[in-house]
């Protein structure tokens, strides 16, 4: 009898915890959307905040976020994928692979504020890049590298060995085999890693505060303006959200939060779709 009571209490606690988790998510989404959607408007999304014109907008921050996502991926994706290829296809099970796996784990565990400090002194001061989008992107490269490396590595591990021996047996050179057989088969896994990295970058703030800074203006017109922007400071959506929040501009903060939450939902959905095609051996 006592045991039955105990069991019932435990089961109730289990249900309660899970219910709480789901309720929490539902409340967060509903609250942010309820407070944020009324703020969203065409001018909020397409203009820059300006006291002169009397506009409040986050267009500059959206552009900055895009810049940082693209530049970070341009640097991090080749390095991460290359690293995974070396570990899985060239190095065998050597001591070096264990060392690299260990450092990758370590890098994944370092808090973003430490990346921010390092990026500020190394990229900002030692390399003299100052507060700029490039400094921010390089800092974030270090942060998302483990994510891309590990996902690529898992994807390569999942490619059956028969694919490799088949290609080599037909006389393909190793690099040719990797390029034409392995990478296409591993593509869903690699893309999943990249999408997860985009999610990390979009949501990151502590590593960017002291590296990319807090500009909110659009790039100057012309091609040169687009390139010059890379060397200028630029705050992403999260940074602007933080700054608005500390200045008690809660309307703007909730507007940005709603935009960010939409992005998170989209990224989550994309990961699901891509990850659904992960098994290379099944059918088409």
């Amino acid at each position, binding site marked *: 009898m006592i045991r039955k009571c105990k069991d019932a209490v435990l089961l109730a606690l289990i249900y309660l915890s899970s219910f709480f*988790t789901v309720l929490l998510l539902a409340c967060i*989404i509903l609250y942010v959307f309820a407070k944020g959607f009324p703020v969203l408007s065409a001018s909020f999304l397409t203009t820059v905040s300006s006291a002169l014109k009397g506009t409040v907008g986050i267009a500059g921050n959206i552009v900055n976020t895009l810049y940082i996502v693209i530049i970070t991926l341009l640097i991090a994706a080749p390095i991460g994928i290359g*690293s995974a290829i070396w570990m899985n296809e060239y190095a065998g099970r050597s001591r070096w692979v264990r*060392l690299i796996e260990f450092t990758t784990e*370590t890098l994944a565990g370092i808090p973003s504020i430490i990346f921010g*400090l390092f990026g500020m002194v190394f990229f900002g001061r030692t390399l003299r890049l100052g507060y700029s989008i490039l400094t921010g992107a390089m800092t974030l490269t270090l942060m998302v590298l483990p994510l891309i490396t590990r996902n690529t590595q898992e994807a390569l591990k999942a490619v059956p060995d028969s694919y490799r021996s088949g290609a080599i047996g037909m006389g393909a050179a190793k690099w040719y085999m990797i390029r034409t057989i392995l990478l296409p088969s591993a593509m869903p896994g690699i893309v999943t890693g990249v999408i997860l990295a985009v999610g990390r970058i979009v949501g990151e703030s502590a590593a960017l*505060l002291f590296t990319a800074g807090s500009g909110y203006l659009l790039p100057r017109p012309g091609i040169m303006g687009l390139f010059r922007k890379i060397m200028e400071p630029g705050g992403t959506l999260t940074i602007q959200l*933080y700054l608005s929040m500390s200045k008690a501009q809660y309307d703007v903060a909730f507007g940005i*939060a709603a935009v960010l939450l939409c992005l998170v939902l989209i990224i989550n959905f994309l990961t699901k779709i891509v990850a659904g095609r992960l098994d290379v051996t099944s059918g088409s």
Partner: protein
Amino acid sequence: MAEAVFTICAFFTVLAVVSITLYMFANGLPAIFKVGIREILFSTVWKPAADEPSYGILYVILTSVTGTFLAVLIGVPAALLTAVFLVEIAPAKLAAVVGPAVELLAGIPSVIYGLLGLMLLNPLMYRWEKALFRGSDTHQFTGGANLLSAVLVLAIMILPTVINISASALRAVPAQLKASSLALGASHMQTIFRVLIPAAKPGIITAVVLGVGRAIGEAMAISLVSGSSVNVPLPFNSVRFLTTAIVAEMGYAGGVHRQVLFTIGLVLFLFIMIVNVVLNGILKKGAQKND
């Protein structure tokens, strides 16, 4: 040729970790030599801008330790029970709701948790504070930005990490253990709490350690929620964590003050390295057991 390029890519992470370590020490140590290790680590007075500045960060360290401990204390049981629900209890339809919800929680940017903490938790805390300390003339009122708010935000933020990793640990428990326990007449609950959870212990400990790492390193979510003065870590005090001290003051600090902020960064870095070493130890032990 291709191999050479890939090798360089692979050793990039080694280079990154080594340079981060070197830079953290190179920037964190000067203040220790200048101010003295005892004045920094064991003094409780933080007055970096005073005429006779004092750079004691003991309260900041204690706040991070206490805050992380309390967040884990609250977050881990809830997370473990949710993991049990996902793996053992939930019918497929419910698991299909709870699983994705956990993933989404993990994806929400930390500034949003901070915003919600500021808008929802702080007013609630302020009401409690007014009720609790009515008539007290020693308590400094904080408007709700206190340790407790930060702890709750952190507890929520570590949920996804702990749930996911404990769930995979529970899934990896051999099916015959569960079958034998049930066959011996144990109830489902007894099997879960006496057989499955003990069998999944290394994985669950890993989950907790990762949760600790996540909580101690979080900055933006709690930087406004936790208040802004260096204080004894009591639930209703306005406090500074290692991370929030850096976020709040790095923007304007100069000279020794700035160097001390890097020392705070170094302390945080060392905490994380300890967490990593512990984690590695657990994983190795687990690997040996399975051999």
